[in-house]
C-alpha cells in the first residue's frame, strides 16, 4: 500500500479545523458509497497526461458527474463522461446553497471529490464549504488540502499516480 498521509501536521495553517489524512483505498470506497457525489476536476490535470487519464477513469468507473473547472473542459470533451464547465468559486457558492439543484437539476450534492487544482485555490474554495455547508469533501490532490474533510498528504507526482490507481481499484 502506498503511504499518502505523511507531512500533514505542518500545514495546519487555517486555524482549528484540519482535514483528516486519508489513504487511497479508503477514499475510493467512500467515493463509491456517496449518495450524490460530484467530481470537481481542475485545469491542472491538463499539465500531465497521466493525471488526465486517471481523472477520466475515475469519472467513468464511479459514474461520477464532473464539474470541469478552469479550462479542464478542453481535456474532457468527447471522453464519454458527463462533464460540464463551471467556475470553481461560483460552484462552491452554489454548493453552500441548499436551494441549488446541481449541474443536472436533480438536487444538491453530499460529497465532492477534488482533483487537479492549485493547492492554495482549492484550499480557499473549500474553506468556504467547510465553514458554511455540511458537504463532505475528499481531496485526492498531490498536496495536503487542509480545508477538505479528508485529504491525501504531500506526495510526489509519481506516488500520486500510484495512489490514484489504487483509488481506482477501490471504486
Amino acid at each position, binding site marked *: 500500500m502506498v503511504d499518502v498521509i505523511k507531512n500533514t501536521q505542518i*500545514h495546519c495553517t*487555517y*486555524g482549528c*479545523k484540519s482535514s483528516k489524512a486519508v489513504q487511497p483505498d479508503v477514499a475510493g470506497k467512500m467515493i463509491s458509497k456517496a449518495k450524490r457525489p460530484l467530481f470537481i476536476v481542475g485545469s491542472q490535470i491538463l499539465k500531465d497526461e497521466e493525471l488526465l487519464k486517471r481523472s477520466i477513469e475515475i469519472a467513468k468507473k464511479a459514474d461520477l458527474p464532473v464539474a470541469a473547472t*478552469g*479550462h479542464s473542459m478542453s481535456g474532457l470533451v468527447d471522453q464519454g463522461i458527463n462533464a460540464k464547465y463551471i467556475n470553481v468559486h*461560483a460552484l462552491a457558492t452554489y454548493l453552500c446553497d441548499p436551494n441549488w439543484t446541481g449541474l443536472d437539476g436533480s438536487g444538491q450534492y453530499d460529497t465532492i471529490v477534488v482533483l487537479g487544482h492549485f493547492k492554495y485555490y482549492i484550499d*480557499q474554495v473549500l474553506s*468556504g464549504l467547510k465553514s*458554511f455547508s455540511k458537504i463532505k469533501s475528499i481531496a485526492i490532490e498531490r498536496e495536503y488540502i487542509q480545508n477538505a474533510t479528508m485529504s491525501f498528504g504531500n506526495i510526489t507526482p509519481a506516488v500520486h499516480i500510484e495512489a490514484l490507481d489504487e483509488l481506482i481499484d477501490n471504486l
Partner: protein
Amino acid sequence: MSELTTGKFSMAISDLENVQITINNIVGAIEKEADEIDVEMGPTVKPGVSSLRDWDHNILERYNPVYTPMCDQCCYCTFGPCDLSGNKEGACGIDLAGHNAREFMLRVITGAAAHSGHGRHLLHHLIGLYGKDHPLDVGATNIIAPNVQLVTGVSPKTLGDLDSVLSYVEEQITQLLAAVHVGQEGASIDFESKALHGGMIDHVGMEISDIAQISCLDFPKSDDEAPLADIGMGCLDASKPTLIVIGHNVAAVTDIIDYMEEKGLNDKIELGGLCCTALDMTRYKTGDRTLPRAKVVGTLAKELKTIRSGIPDVIIVDEQCIRADVLKEASKLMIPVITTNDKVMYGLKDRSNDSIEDILEDLTTGKEKGALMFDYVKLGELAPRLTMMMSEIRKQKGIKALPTDEELKELADKCVHCLKCEVACPNSLPISEAMTALSEGDLSNFEVLHDQCIACGRCEFACPKDIDIVNVIEKSSQRVISEEVGKVRVGRGPISDPEIREEGVNLVLGTTPGIVALVGCSNYPDGTRDLFTIADEMLRRSYIVVVSGCSAMDLGMYKGEDGMTLYEKYPARFKSGGLLNTGSCVSNAHITGAVIKVASIFAQKNISGNYEEIADYTLNRVGAVGVAWGAYSQKAASIGTGCSRLGIPVILGPHGSKYRRALIAKPYEEDKWSVYDARNGSKMQIPAAPDYLLTTAETVEEMMPMLAKSCIRPSDNNMGRMIKLTHYIELSQKYLGIMPEDWYKFVRTETDLPLAKREKLLKILEKEHGWEIDWKRKKILSGPAMKSDVSAQPTNLKRLCKEA
C-alpha cells in the same frame, strides 16, 4: 460674494463691510457656494458610512458575499483566540461570516489608507513646493477629478482644494477602522457595506494622489501619445554605477533626476526603478513626450532578484510594496539603503539634518548600512554621488553576488528532493524536478520557473540544506533575464473628454465590446506572460484594454511574433482596440474616472454627489470589466471593491481567493435578474451578466470567455449584443473547447445572433431549447426571456423611475 469659489479667491474688502465672519463658517460658506455653482448636486455629498447603504444592500441582494476564510479563528482581542469554525460564535458574539466580512473590510481600508496616506504625503510635499494655489491640470477635460466630484461634490481646481477632500477621506477611513474594533458591527451585511464604502473612498484617495502629481511634475496629461520607456531586468547596463529606486511614491526621486540632469550624469549612472515609483519616474518630465530619464526594472516580483543580482550600487526606498528584507539583503552585498518616507524606516538613523559628506563617509565605509533621509534636496545630491562612490568601492571589493557556474552545479547536487521548498512555495512550483535537471546540466526547467517565480524566498527558509534557491533560479536564467528587454508606454493619466465623447456611445450600446482593465499586482498563478496573452486576445477583438501599475509593466515584457510589444502595436487612445496605460497604482482612479465620465459626458448625468445613480448606470450600461490577475496587495482588494460599489465587475487570479470574500450572483435565482425600466417603473428581465462583482478565475483560459460575458449589459443594442455574443462563443470554443452552456440566454432576437453562425444557432435554439423560429424570415417567434428594446432605461433604483 460671487467671487467665492472653492479655489483661491481675492476679497474686495468693500464687499464685506459690516460682515462678521467666523472662520469655520467661511470654509462652510465656500462649500455651500460650491454647491450653488454646480447646476445640480446629488443626494450624497460627502457620504458618511451609512449614506450609500441602501445601494450596497441593493447590489448585495443579487451579488452574494461569499466567504472563504483564511483562518477559522479570530485573534483580535484578548478574549481570543476564538474558534469560529463551522460558523460558531466567538466570545464577543461574532460569527465566522461576520468576522470574515470584517477581515475583508480591514484589507480594503488598509489598501485605501495606503493610497490616501501616499496622497497625503505627496500633497503635503507638492504644496510645499508649488503652493496651495497651484492649478490642477490633467489634460483636456472639464472633469478634473471625476471620483472626487462623484463622491464629494467638490470640483477641485487647485492643489489646496484637494486638502479638505483628503481630510474627508481620512475621516471616513478612521470611521471604518473604528468599526473593526471588537463589539462594533454584528452583521456581515453591514461590514460589507462598510467595505464597499472603503473601496469607494480609495478611488478618491488614488485620484487625489495622481492628479496632484500630474499637475505638478510635468507628467503626460491625458496624452494618447505618451512616449515609451525601457523595461526589464535585461535593460540595466550593469557596467555603470547603478541606482535603484523601489516603491510607490515619486516625491523623493524627482530631486535625484533633477540633480543628475543638472550635473550631466544621465549617461554616467544607470537609474532604474521597481514597482510604481519606476512608472512614475518615467512620467516625470515627459509631458512634452521627451524620453523618460529612468528605466523600469519591473514589479515587486523582481525586487529580490534585482538585489541578489548584485547590480544595484545603492537602493532608495520610499513606500508601499517594498520587500521587508531589502536592508538585510542589500547589506549582504554591501549595497547601502536609503529610506525616505516615515512608512518605511527600517530602524535607520535619521540623517536629514546631517551633512552630505558625513553621510557619504558613514555609508561608504560601511559604518552604517543605510540612512533615513527626509530632505529630498539633500537626497537629490546624496544618492547619485553615493552611487558613483559605491560602484567603485564595490568593484574594488569584488562583491560577489550570484553563484558561479560551478557553485550552481554544487547547489543543485546538494538537493535531497524532500519537497519542502515546493510545499513552501506559494505557487507549488516544481523546484525538485528542476534541481534534478540542473544537476544534469539542463537549465531549461529553471528558465521556465524564473517567469513563474515571484522571488518571495519562502523556499529558502524551508530548505533543510540551506540552498539559496532564488539564486539558483536567477543564475540558471541569466540568458532569459538578459533578454528581458521590453517597452512600456509611459502612463498617460486620465482619459480625455474628447475621447469619452467619441467612444461613450459605442460602449453603452455595446458596439465596442467592452473595456478590459488589466490592473493589480504580480502574484500570477502561472507567470507574467499570461497578461500578454489576455491583452493580445482582447485587443485583436477590439476591446479597449486599459492597464496600470504592475500589470502595465509586465505587459511590456513580452513581444509578439512580430517582435513588437503590444504597446508598440496598438494605439494608446481610448477607443476600440486601444491599449492605454494610465500610469501607476494610483492611476487606477482614471479607469473608474473614465466610466464615471461616460455617464457624465455621454449620458449627461450629473455626477456631483450623485454616486448611486452613476453606479447604477455603470452596472446596467457600461460594459467594463476589471482583471487583477496577479492581485496580491490590500490595495488591489480596495481598488476592486471600489469597482464593486460602482458596478464594475472584477476578476481576480486564483490567489485572489485569499482575500476571503467574493461577490458572486446565482444565475439560477431567476427573480434576481430583473431591473426597473426607468421610463415607467415596469420590471424588465435582464441577462445574468455580469454574474459576479468580484470573483476569481482558475486560469487565463477560463477567464477569456468570462471576460466577454462580463461585458454584456441590458443596454446593448442588437449590434452590440451580437458582437459580444460572438466573442463569448468564440472564446469559449477556443479556450474550453465548447459552446458556452448559457449562450442562448443572452439572445433577445435573431439580430442578437452572430451573423456568420445565425442559421446554425437558430437551429440549436429550436432543437435544444424549443424556441419557435420562422425559418422563412429567419426570425425568432418565441423563446427569449427578454425583450430587445434599446430605448429601455434599465435601473436598479425605483426612485429614478418616472412613474415610481
